[in-house]
Protein backbone atom coordinates (compact mmCIF):
# COMPACT_ATOMS: atom_id res chain seq x y z
CA UNK A 1 0.00 0.00 0.00
CA UNK A 2 1.38 3.39 -0.97
CA UNK A 3 0.98 5.69 1.97
CA UNK A 4 2.37 8.81 0.30
CA UNK A 5 0.74 11.43 -1.83
CA UNK A 6 1.53 11.14 -5.55
CA UNK A 7 2.37 14.87 -5.57
CA UNK A 8 5.32 14.22 -3.20
CA UNK A 9 7.26 11.91 -5.52
CA UNK A 10 9.96 14.47 -6.33
CA UNK A 11 10.49 15.56 -2.73
CA UNK A 12 13.01 13.95 -0.32
CA UNK A 13 11.57 11.32 2.01
CA UNK A 14 11.68 13.53 5.12
CA UNK A 15 9.56 16.20 3.39
CA UNK A 16 6.91 13.85 2.03
CA UNK A 17 3.46 13.98 3.57
CA UNK A 18 1.52 10.77 4.18
CA UNK A 19 -1.55 9.94 2.12
CA UNK A 20 -4.01 9.92 5.01
CA UNK A 21 -6.89 8.53 2.96
CA UNK A 22 -5.09 5.17 2.50
CA UNK A 23 -4.05 4.80 6.12
CA UNK A 24 -5.98 3.00 8.82
CA UNK A 25 -7.48 5.36 11.43
CA UNK A 26 -5.11 5.71 14.38
CA UNK A 27 -6.12 5.31 18.01
CA UNK A 28 -6.40 8.73 19.64
CA UNK A 29 -3.12 9.23 21.56
CA UNK A 30 -2.44 11.41 24.57
CA UNK A 31 -2.12 15.16 23.92
CA UNK A 32 1.41 16.38 23.05
CA UNK A 33 3.64 16.61 26.10
CA UNK A 34 1.48 14.18 28.08
CA UNK A 35 3.07 11.01 26.76
CA UNK A 36 3.54 8.49 29.55
CA UNK A 37 7.11 7.17 29.72
CA UNK A 38 7.59 3.46 30.11
CA UNK A 39 7.74 2.74 33.85
CA UNK A 40 11.20 1.65 35.02
CA UNK A 41 11.66 -0.79 37.90
CA UNK A 42 12.35 0.86 41.27
CA UNK A 43 16.04 0.99 42.28
CA UNK A 44 17.30 -1.94 44.29
CA UNK A 45 17.53 -1.07 47.99
CA UNK A 46 21.01 -0.90 49.47
CA UNK A 47 21.07 -2.82 52.75
CA UNK A 48 23.57 -4.50 55.03
CA UNK A 49 23.65 -8.24 54.48
CA UNK A 50 25.97 -11.22 55.10
CA UNK A 51 27.06 -11.03 51.48
CA UNK A 52 28.06 -7.38 52.03
CA UNK A 53 30.13 -8.33 55.11
CA UNK A 54 31.68 -11.25 53.19
CA UNK A 55 32.68 -8.95 50.31
CA UNK A 56 34.09 -6.38 52.75
CA UNK A 57 36.21 -8.92 54.66
CA UNK A 58 37.19 -10.88 51.55
CA UNK A 59 38.68 -7.80 49.93
CA UNK A 60 40.94 -7.20 52.95
CA UNK A 61 41.81 -10.90 53.21
CA UNK A 62 42.72 -11.38 49.55
CA UNK A 63 44.73 -8.17 49.14
CA UNK A 64 46.55 -8.75 52.44
CA UNK A 65 47.39 -12.37 51.57
CA UNK A 66 48.72 -11.36 48.15
CA UNK A 67 50.83 -8.64 49.74
CA UNK A 68 52.23 -10.96 52.43
CA UNK A 69 53.01 -13.73 49.95
CA UNK A 70 54.97 -11.52 47.55
CA UNK A 71 56.25 -8.79 49.88
CA UNK A 72 59.97 -8.15 49.51
CA UNK A 73 60.14 -10.04 46.20
CA UNK A 74 60.47 -8.57 42.74
CA UNK A 75 57.16 -10.10 41.75
CA UNK A 76 55.46 -7.60 44.10
CA UNK A 77 55.84 -4.90 41.42
CA UNK A 78 54.07 -7.07 38.83
CA UNK A 79 51.36 -8.12 41.29
CA UNK A 80 50.79 -4.53 42.42
CA UNK A 81 50.45 -3.38 38.83
CA UNK A 82 48.06 -6.19 38.00
CA UNK A 83 45.94 -5.65 41.11
CA UNK A 84 44.78 -2.28 39.85
CA UNK A 85 42.89 -3.50 36.74
CA UNK A 86 41.94 -6.75 38.50
CA UNK A 87 40.24 -4.78 41.28
CA UNK A 88 38.35 -2.57 38.85
CA UNK A 89 37.17 -5.52 36.74
CA UNK A 90 36.27 -7.58 39.86
CA UNK A 91 34.27 -4.67 41.27
CA UNK A 92 32.28 -4.20 38.07
CA UNK A 93 31.66 -7.96 37.72
CA UNK A 94 30.59 -8.40 41.35
CA UNK A 95 28.37 -5.31 41.26
CA UNK A 96 26.61 -6.84 38.27
CA UNK A 97 26.43 -10.50 39.38
CA UNK A 98 26.24 -10.37 43.20
CA UNK A 99 25.73 -6.69 44.07
CA UNK A 100 25.95 -7.07 47.85
CA UNK A 101 29.42 -8.65 47.65
CA UNK A 102 30.44 -5.92 45.20
CA UNK A 103 29.22 -3.16 47.54
CA UNK A 104 31.16 -4.81 50.38
CA UNK A 105 34.36 -4.80 48.31
CA UNK A 106 33.77 -1.21 47.24
CA UNK A 107 33.21 -0.16 50.86
CA UNK A 108 36.47 -1.83 51.94
CA UNK A 109 38.37 -0.04 49.18
CA UNK A 110 36.62 3.25 50.06
CA UNK A 111 37.46 2.85 53.76
CA UNK A 112 41.13 2.26 52.98
CA UNK A 113 41.21 5.34 50.75
CA UNK A 114 39.52 7.37 53.47
CA UNK A 115 42.12 6.23 56.01
CA UNK A 116 44.91 7.24 53.62
CA UNK A 117 43.28 10.66 53.20
CA UNK A 118 43.14 11.22 56.96
CA UNK A 119 46.75 10.02 57.31
CA UNK A 120 47.59 12.57 54.62
CA UNK A 121 46.81 15.36 57.09
CA UNK A 122 50.24 14.90 58.67
CA UNK A 123 52.06 14.30 55.36
CA UNK A 124 53.43 17.02 53.16
CA UNK A 125 52.09 15.61 49.89
CA UNK A 126 50.98 17.56 46.82
CA UNK A 127 48.97 16.44 43.84
CA UNK A 128 51.99 15.44 41.74
CA UNK A 129 54.40 14.16 44.38
CA UNK A 130 55.39 10.97 42.44
CA UNK A 131 58.05 13.07 40.75
CA UNK A 132 59.83 13.50 44.03
CA UNK A 133 59.74 9.92 45.27
CA UNK A 134 62.63 7.79 44.06
Amino acid at each position, binding site marked *: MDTHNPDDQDRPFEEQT*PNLSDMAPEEPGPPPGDEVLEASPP*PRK*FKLSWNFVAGFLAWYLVTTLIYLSVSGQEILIIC*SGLLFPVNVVALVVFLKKTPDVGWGMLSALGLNLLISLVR*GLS*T*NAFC*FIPFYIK
Partner: protein
Amino acid sequence: MYPVLFEINGVPIYAHGFFLNLALLVCLLVIISEGRRRRWPKEEIIPITLAAFVGGMLGARVSIVFFNGWETAPVVLDFYRLFDPRIGPGSILGGVAGAYLAGFIASRAIGKAGCACDAFAPAMALAMVVGRIGCFLSGEDGLGKPTALPWGVWNGSYLAHPAPLYDAAFNLTWFGALVALRNHPKLQNGNLLKFGLGGYAVFRFFVEFLRNNRLVLWGLTGQQLACVLLLLALAVYYGWQFSSVRLLEKRKLVRS
Protein backbone atom coordinates in the same frame (compact mmCIF):
# COMPACT_ATOMS: atom_id res chain seq x y z
CA MET B 1 53.59 29.82 51.69
CA TYR B 2 52.19 28.12 54.76
CA PRO B 3 52.61 24.38 54.20
CA VAL B 4 52.08 23.62 57.91
CA LEU B 5 48.80 25.00 59.21
CA PHE B 6 49.16 24.01 62.87
CA GLU B 7 50.41 21.23 65.11
CA ILE B 8 48.57 18.78 67.34
CA ASN B 9 50.81 17.33 70.08
CA GLY B 10 53.85 18.01 67.93
CA VAL B 11 52.30 16.38 64.84
CA PRO B 12 52.22 18.89 61.95
CA ILE B 13 48.93 19.27 60.06
CA TYR B 14 49.75 20.20 56.46
CA ALA B 15 47.69 22.66 54.45
CA HIS B 16 47.27 20.48 51.37
CA GLY B 17 45.98 17.45 53.24
CA PHE B 18 43.81 19.56 55.54
CA PHE B 19 42.06 21.43 52.75
CA LEU B 20 41.73 18.28 50.65
CA ASN B 21 39.88 16.56 53.50
CA LEU B 22 37.83 19.69 54.12
CA ALA B 23 36.98 19.90 50.40
CA LEU B 24 35.70 16.32 50.36
CA LEU B 25 33.64 17.00 53.48
CA VAL B 26 32.15 20.13 51.88
CA CYS B 27 31.44 18.12 48.72
CA LEU B 28 29.63 15.46 50.76
CA LEU B 29 27.56 18.04 52.66
CA VAL B 30 26.45 19.78 49.45
CA ILE B 31 25.54 16.41 47.88
CA ILE B 32 23.46 15.49 50.96
CA SER B 33 21.75 18.89 50.94
CA GLU B 34 21.08 18.74 47.19
CA GLY B 35 19.93 15.14 47.49
CA ARG B 36 17.37 16.15 50.12
CA ARG B 37 16.21 19.10 48.05
CA ARG B 38 15.76 16.86 45.02
CA ARG B 39 14.12 14.18 47.20
CA TRP B 40 16.54 11.46 46.20
CA PRO B 41 16.39 8.48 48.55
CA LYS B 42 19.48 7.69 50.57
CA GLU B 43 19.40 4.15 49.13
CA GLU B 44 20.54 5.76 45.89
CA ILE B 45 22.74 8.57 47.17
CA ILE B 46 24.94 6.41 49.45
CA PRO B 47 26.09 3.82 46.89
CA ILE B 48 26.48 6.34 44.07
CA THR B 49 28.50 8.70 46.30
CA LEU B 50 30.64 5.84 47.59
CA ALA B 51 31.37 4.67 44.05
CA ALA B 52 32.09 8.24 42.92
CA PHE B 53 34.53 8.68 45.83
CA VAL B 54 36.43 5.47 45.04
CA GLY B 55 36.35 6.13 41.28
CA GLY B 56 37.50 9.69 41.87
CA MET B 57 40.46 8.62 43.99
CA LEU B 58 41.50 5.94 41.49
CA GLY B 59 41.01 8.25 38.50
CA ALA B 60 42.99 11.07 40.13
CA ARG B 61 45.95 8.77 40.71
CA VAL B 62 45.89 6.89 37.39
CA SER B 63 45.59 10.08 35.33
CA ILE B 64 49.04 11.15 36.56
CA VAL B 65 50.51 8.70 34.03
CA PHE B 66 48.79 10.64 31.24
CA PHE B 67 49.65 14.07 32.63
CA ASN B 68 53.18 13.48 33.90
CA GLY B 69 54.55 10.69 31.74
CA TRP B 70 55.04 6.94 31.74
CA GLU B 71 58.01 7.16 34.13
CA THR B 72 55.52 7.77 36.96
CA ALA B 73 53.74 4.45 36.24
CA PRO B 74 55.71 2.26 38.69
CA VAL B 75 54.57 4.52 41.54
CA VAL B 76 51.17 5.61 40.30
CA LEU B 77 49.92 2.21 39.12
CA ASP B 78 51.20 0.35 42.17
CA PHE B 79 48.03 -0.81 43.88
CA TYR B 80 49.49 -0.87 47.39
CA ARG B 81 50.90 2.64 47.04
CA LEU B 82 47.36 3.81 46.35
CA PHE B 83 47.02 3.97 50.13
CA ASP B 84 50.34 5.72 50.73
CA PRO B 85 49.51 9.32 51.69
CA ARG B 86 53.06 10.50 50.85
CA ILE B 87 52.38 10.10 47.15
CA GLY B 88 49.61 12.67 46.99
CA PRO B 89 46.09 12.42 45.68
CA GLY B 90 46.71 13.10 41.96
CA SER B 91 44.90 15.26 39.44
CA ILE B 92 41.45 16.75 39.93
CA LEU B 93 40.62 16.26 36.24
CA GLY B 94 41.33 12.53 36.48
CA GLY B 95 39.37 12.48 39.72
CA VAL B 96 36.33 14.04 38.08
CA ALA B 97 36.50 11.58 35.16
CA GLY B 98 36.86 8.60 37.51
CA ALA B 99 34.06 9.79 39.77
CA TYR B 100 31.73 10.31 36.79
CA LEU B 101 32.43 6.86 35.36
CA ALA B 102 32.14 5.08 38.72
CA GLY B 103 28.96 6.98 39.61
CA PHE B 104 27.46 5.99 36.26
CA ILE B 105 28.34 2.30 36.77
CA ALA B 106 26.94 2.40 40.33
CA SER B 107 23.67 4.03 39.25
CA ARG B 108 23.23 1.33 36.59
CA ALA B 109 24.16 -1.39 39.13
CA ILE B 110 21.38 -0.31 41.51
CA GLY B 111 18.97 -0.06 38.58
CA LYS B 112 18.42 3.66 38.81
CA ALA B 113 16.60 5.15 35.87
CA GLY B 114 17.89 8.52 34.70
CA CYS B 115 20.86 10.43 36.02
CA ALA B 116 21.45 11.32 39.66
CA CYS B 117 24.53 13.35 38.96
CA ASP B 118 23.22 16.93 38.91
CA ALA B 119 23.64 17.19 42.69
CA PHE B 120 27.37 16.67 42.13
CA ALA B 121 27.80 19.77 39.92
CA PRO B 122 27.62 22.54 42.57
CA ALA B 123 29.22 20.20 45.13
CA MET B 124 32.32 19.68 43.01
CA ALA B 125 32.64 23.41 42.25
CA LEU B 126 32.52 24.35 45.95
CA ALA B 127 34.89 21.52 46.88
CA MET B 128 37.40 22.83 44.35
CA VAL B 129 37.21 26.30 45.94
CA VAL B 130 38.25 24.78 49.27
CA GLY B 131 40.80 22.37 47.82
CA ARG B 132 42.60 25.06 45.85
CA ILE B 133 43.26 27.03 49.04
CA GLY B 134 45.35 24.05 50.17
CA CYS B 135 47.18 23.99 46.82
CA PHE B 136 47.96 27.70 47.22
CA LEU B 137 49.15 27.46 50.84
CA SER B 138 51.39 24.50 50.05
CA GLY B 139 52.88 26.32 47.04
CA GLU B 140 52.10 23.41 44.74
CA ASP B 141 54.13 23.35 41.49
CA GLY B 142 55.56 26.78 42.28
CA LEU B 143 52.02 28.22 42.03
CA GLY B 144 52.34 29.47 38.45
CA LYS B 145 54.42 31.18 35.80
CA PRO B 146 56.37 34.38 36.62
CA THR B 147 54.43 37.64 36.54
CA ALA B 148 54.98 41.33 37.18
CA LEU B 149 51.33 41.90 38.06
CA PRO B 150 50.70 43.55 41.44
CA TRP B 151 49.02 40.41 42.83
CA GLY B 152 51.99 38.17 41.99
CA VAL B 153 52.99 35.95 44.92
CA TRP B 154 56.59 35.22 45.96
CA ASN B 155 57.07 31.45 45.70
CA GLY B 156 60.63 31.43 47.02
CA SER B 157 62.24 31.97 43.62
CA TYR B 158 60.13 34.50 41.73
CA LEU B 159 56.84 36.40 41.74
CA ALA B 160 54.30 33.92 40.40
CA HIS B 161 50.71 33.92 39.22
CA PRO B 162 48.62 32.60 42.13
CA ALA B 163 47.01 30.09 39.76
CA PRO B 164 45.28 28.05 42.51
CA LEU B 165 43.53 31.23 43.66
CA TYR B 166 42.38 31.97 40.09
CA ASP B 167 40.94 28.46 40.08
CA ALA B 168 39.26 29.01 43.45
CA ALA B 169 37.79 32.36 42.35
CA PHE B 170 36.40 30.87 39.14
CA ASN B 171 34.90 27.90 40.97
CA LEU B 172 33.26 30.15 43.56
CA THR B 173 31.60 32.14 40.75
CA TRP B 174 30.77 28.90 38.92
CA PHE B 175 29.24 27.46 42.10
CA GLY B 176 26.92 30.50 42.30
CA ALA B 177 25.98 30.11 38.64
CA LEU B 178 25.26 26.39 38.99
CA VAL B 179 23.11 26.97 42.09
CA ALA B 180 21.20 29.68 40.24
CA LEU B 181 20.66 27.40 37.22
CA ARG B 182 19.96 24.14 39.06
CA ASN B 183 16.18 24.39 38.58
CA HIS B 184 16.33 25.31 34.91
CA PRO B 185 14.21 22.78 32.97
CA LYS B 186 16.88 22.27 30.31
CA LEU B 187 19.60 21.59 32.90
CA GLN B 188 18.13 18.46 34.44
CA ASN B 189 18.87 14.76 34.11
CA GLY B 190 22.65 15.10 33.99
CA ASN B 191 22.80 18.29 31.95
CA LEU B 192 23.74 20.51 34.92
CA LEU B 193 26.80 18.35 35.62
CA LYS B 194 27.79 18.32 31.94
CA PHE B 195 27.35 22.10 31.81
CA GLY B 196 29.41 22.50 34.99
CA LEU B 197 32.20 20.28 33.71
CA GLY B 198 32.19 21.99 30.32
CA GLY B 199 32.50 25.43 31.93
CA TYR B 200 35.35 24.31 34.14
CA ALA B 201 37.12 22.67 31.17
CA VAL B 202 37.03 25.97 29.22
CA PHE B 203 38.42 27.87 32.21
CA ARG B 204 41.04 25.24 32.98
CA PHE B 205 42.25 25.19 29.38
CA PHE B 206 43.15 28.87 29.59
CA VAL B 207 44.47 28.96 33.16
CA GLU B 208 46.88 26.14 32.26
CA PHE B 209 48.88 28.70 30.25
CA LEU B 210 49.73 30.33 33.59
CA ARG B 211 50.70 27.09 35.34
CA ASN B 212 53.90 25.07 35.40
CA ASN B 213 52.48 21.76 34.24
CA ARG B 214 54.40 19.58 31.83
CA LEU B 215 53.88 20.10 28.08
CA VAL B 216 52.77 16.88 26.43
CA LEU B 217 51.79 17.59 22.83
CA TRP B 218 51.56 20.59 20.46
CA GLY B 219 52.73 22.92 23.22
CA LEU B 220 49.77 21.93 25.36
CA THR B 221 49.78 20.32 28.80
CA GLY B 222 48.10 16.98 29.47
CA GLN B 223 45.42 18.85 31.39
CA GLN B 224 44.68 21.06 28.38
CA LEU B 225 44.43 18.01 26.12
CA ALA B 226 42.05 16.41 28.63
CA CYS B 227 39.91 19.59 28.60
CA VAL B 228 39.81 19.56 24.79
CA LEU B 229 38.81 15.87 24.78
CA LEU B 230 36.09 16.56 27.35
CA LEU B 231 34.71 19.48 25.34
CA LEU B 232 34.78 17.40 22.15
CA ALA B 233 32.95 14.57 23.92
CA LEU B 234 30.31 17.04 25.14
CA ALA B 235 29.97 18.53 21.65
CA VAL B 236 29.47 15.05 20.13
CA TYR B 237 26.96 14.12 22.85
CA TYR B 238 24.89 17.27 22.46
CA GLY B 239 25.17 17.14 18.67
CA TRP B 240 23.80 13.61 18.73
CA GLN B 241 21.06 14.60 21.20
CA PHE B 242 20.09 17.60 19.09
CA SER B 243 19.89 15.57 15.88
CA SER B 244 17.85 12.85 17.66
CA VAL B 245 15.36 15.42 18.93
CA ARG B 246 15.06 17.01 15.48
CA LEU B 247 14.49 13.62 13.88
CA LEU B 248 11.82 12.80 16.47
CA GLU B 249 10.10 16.14 15.86
CA LYS B 250 10.14 15.53 12.09
CA ARG B 251 8.61 12.09 12.55
CA LYS B 252 5.90 13.54 14.79
CA LEU B 253 5.24 16.21 12.17
CA VAL B 254 4.95 13.55 9.46
CA ARG B 255 2.53 11.50 11.60
CA SER B 256 0.34 14.46 12.39
